[in-house]
């Protein structure tokens, strides 16, 4: 087998040198009854071209459609620069472990430090960790952190306009953790958090945090200042959740308008769609909360000759030191995805990220206008949005199905997650959709 260096002769001579005769001797101490039943019934191994052929066949049973796929809903089509893949394909990055030996892991460590720096810049906060699994679990971790910071509070308020999957993950994480529950807060007709509902919710027992999308699942840009004031009024933390990281190229930094913890999904930064993963949980907060924070952190330091270097730090928050008292159970995170995002953000940089985000917002607006003019759609919500928006149109689901038949994925029907929006579709338009693709969309949804 090509991956295994050992020839039979190697095996024999190694066995001999350690005083054994057969490979089986080395597991003789494992109970015989277990060994007897342990054989693996799978097909025989395959040569490289055979594996490639099988995987190519499976890949070709998928139909990404790409430019005529207008689904967002937590995963966003953006161009992935070739340089990103070149960097993350470097074996030295891809096949290293967590940088436990910093002297021979400075590549990974410096890159994480750069990542942390850029994430803090995007969110307008002071500290960011080295990544969480994805936007959903980052949200759950933020809620758990809020609970640690507000130990007396028994509730967290989740905007109903957060991605449904994120809310589900939060609830899974909270289940059984003690007297702490998540309550949904509905959205108003403009798509933003309904302030009256929020006020009602805050009126009850203490609340650890208010968690809002920024933008929301509907692409709507929340008025963070308003929510933040209410949070402060109730001594609750404001947690913002950004499922579409690209929005941070354009929108006001959450940290600048009241967020105490800001999390998000970094998939848009060079990761591609990959059927939902691996993605990248972003997590940032204020400096004073750093010791309550989950996840790995890299710090600058010096070596014994005074040269700058980077190390993992504040490990006393983490499971391998603190065990059941750790701030999180996370160990393996999404390191290489964070590296991809670092490369992406370095390439796009100050000017490019803004320009791209701006184009996304504008192209989405153009698409909405065309859908209204050309397909009789109506925007569901009036509040400003980023690159995603909900439209209402008669017989939405039937039209959506008809569009599939002409190879257009006209977003995601909202009715499953929001029965009150049965006639609505959630559409995402980014820089990958040409104006002509938008016309195909309009055509496909025409009554």
């Amino acid at each position, binding site marked *: 087998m090509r991956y295994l260096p050992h020839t039979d002769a190697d095996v024999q001579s190694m066995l001999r040198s350690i005083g054994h005769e057969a490979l089986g001797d080395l597991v003789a101490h494992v109970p015989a009854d277990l060994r007897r039943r342990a054989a693996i019934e799978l097909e025989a191994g395959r040569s490289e071209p055979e594996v490639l052929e099988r995987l190519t066949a499976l890949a070709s049973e998928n139909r990404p459609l790409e430019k005529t796929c207008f689904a967002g809903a937590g995963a966003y089509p953006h161009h992935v620069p070739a340089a990103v893949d070149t960097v993350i394909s470097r074996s030295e990055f891809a096949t290293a472990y967590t940088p436990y030996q910093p002297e021979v892991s400075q590549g990974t460590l410096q890159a994480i430090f750069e990542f942390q720096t850029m994430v803090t810049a995007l969110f307008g906060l002071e500290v960011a960790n080295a990544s969480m699994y994805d936007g959903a679990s980052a949200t759950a971790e933020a809620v758990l952190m809020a609970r640690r910071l507000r130990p007396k509070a028994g509730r967290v308020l989740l905007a109903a306009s957060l991605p449904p999957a994120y809310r589900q993950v939060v609830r899974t994480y909270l289940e059984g953790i003690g007297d702490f529950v998540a309550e949904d807060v509905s959205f108003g007709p403009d798509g933003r958090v309904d302030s009256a509902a929020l006020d009602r919710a805050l009126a009850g027992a203490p609340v650890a945090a208010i968690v809002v999308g920024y933008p929301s699942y509907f692409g709507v840009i929340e008025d963070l200042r308003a929510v933040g004031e209410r949070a402060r009024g109730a001594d609750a933390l404001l947690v913002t959740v950004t499922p579409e990281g690209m929005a941070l190229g354009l929108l006001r930094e959450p940290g600048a308008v009241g967020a105490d913890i800001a999390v998000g999904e970094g998939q848009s930064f060079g990761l591609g769609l990959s059927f939902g993963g691996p993605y990248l949980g972003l997590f940032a907060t204020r400096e004073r909360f750093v010791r309550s924070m989950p996840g790995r952190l890299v710090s600058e330091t010096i070596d014994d000759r005074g040269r700058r270097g980077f190390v993992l730090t504040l490990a006393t928050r983490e499971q391998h030191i603190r065990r059941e008292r750790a701030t999180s159970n996370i160990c393996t995170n999404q*390191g290489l995805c964070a590296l991809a995002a670092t490369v992406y953000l370095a390439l796009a940089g100050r000017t490019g990220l803004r320009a791209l985000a701006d184009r996304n917002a504008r192209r989405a607006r153009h698409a909405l206008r065309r859908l209204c003019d050309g397909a009789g759609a109506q925007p569901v919500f009036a509040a400003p949005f980023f690159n995603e928006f909900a439209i209402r149109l008669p017989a939405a689901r039937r039209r959506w199905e008809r569009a599939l038949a002409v190879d257009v994925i006209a977003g995601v029907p909202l009715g499953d997650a929001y029965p009150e929006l049965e006639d609505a579709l959630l559409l995402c338009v980014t820089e990958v959709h040409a104006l002509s693709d938008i016309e195909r969309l309009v055509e496909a949804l025409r009554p």
Partner: protein
Amino acid sequence: MSGVGPERNRGISLAEPLLFERGSAGRVGIDVPPLDRVEREVEPVPAELCRDDLESLPELSEPEVLRHFLRLSQWNFSAATNFYPLGSCTMKYNPVLDEQVARLPGFARLHPAVPDAFAQGALGLMAELERMLAEVSGMDAISLQPAAGAQGELTGMKMIRAYHAERGDPRRTVLIPESAHGTNPASSALCGYQVVPVPSGREGMIDPAAVAKLADERVAAIMITNPNTLGLFEKDIVRITEIVHAKGAQVYLDGANLNALLGVAKPGHMGADVLQFNLHKTFSTPHGGGGPGAGPVGVRQHLADYLPTPRVVRTEHAWTRSDAAPKSIGRVHGFFGNFGMLVRAYAYILALGGDGLERATALAILNANYLRHHLEDAFELPYREPCLHECVFSDRRLEPFGVRTLDVAKRLLDYGFYAPTIYFPLVVSGAMMIEPTESESRETLDEFIAAMHTIVAEAREDAERLKAAPHLTRVSRLDEVRAARHPVLRWRPRSESA
């Protein structure tokens, strides 16, 4: 080979500043074509919702960005370039083919929200991988959703919680051996459980009697790592799981060490009710400098209804995603887990096949025993039972020279080897946990053995030099205490940080 000893590794390592210390205002590494007329005409996002600037982001051209990261990459040791005997991490060879197939556009560009009909290949792959994992482990049902081992543990423990809750018997504690990985107690705590430590027996294994003493009706589960973190097969595993089951508790098996078991013993036969697979260990997806991994969970039939949703199920003609599982603990991931890593693991399993997986385990065990045998005269081996895929030494014999495990680890770097896992498990003082995996040739093991022996000689002859190691790396020992006391967690312009 030219030169001898670490000196043959002396050479050039190119300096490189931080991204933020380079560049020039207005430089950019991507081109965004000018706006179309129709885009210019739309009403933009209101200015009061927009940020002023992204001034802390870099301003660099594409070649500068690329050079930056290429240089950084060369500062890393990695499994591809170095022997990386990091215990408990299974740093095996990550086939480059798997990188290629994960990038096939049919996988890499597939949106997770496409209707099932557009994702039959992806769903079929997931279903097949589930079947494969069930086969190798002896479990009945699998969810691929958890993103890493620790999330697999969390998922598993949440299922156990739901199982007890459903039976109206909420339980409070989880038994966890002292030698367990930190994620075990952390994951249990995240499920609201109280952790009850199980002491290590004298031979490094769990004593069934100790379990019997601790197992009562409050116990929800025991979390067992098998082989445990000493690399030892828990020989009484069946007995232990019987004891625990008899008390109505569940058995969580930490599958991080599954690379030692393929073809040797199936967790499902040991009494495990739940286990997680670390695909980034046993099934060879690359570690990525810390991730992403994938931590599928496998369960016996009685827990299958609790698995996360959505599940991949077969209808008459096609694969589909189903949320129809009222007892499910719900989601742990925004979509279906780290799909790209599932593709890689699937390709790996196809490549090896059943026989190949068994052979890989056999060779991993051979390699570990070979190292153990040839190092045990140089280092103290606190537990002398036969090991499986890894072995753990202590630094006791180096104490007379004032040399510690950390010094050995650092000196190994000069020899071009990554260090073992050190100071873990906690039950061994000054632990050096060595896991060679099956990917390393005998010649490499011999070189490592020779280096370890030389280091012992250095300890005797020139301990000071050893304690100042590493000498060849681009930075020498880094001040971790300084970092913990005064963490500098992001770059700031000199003016600000001053």
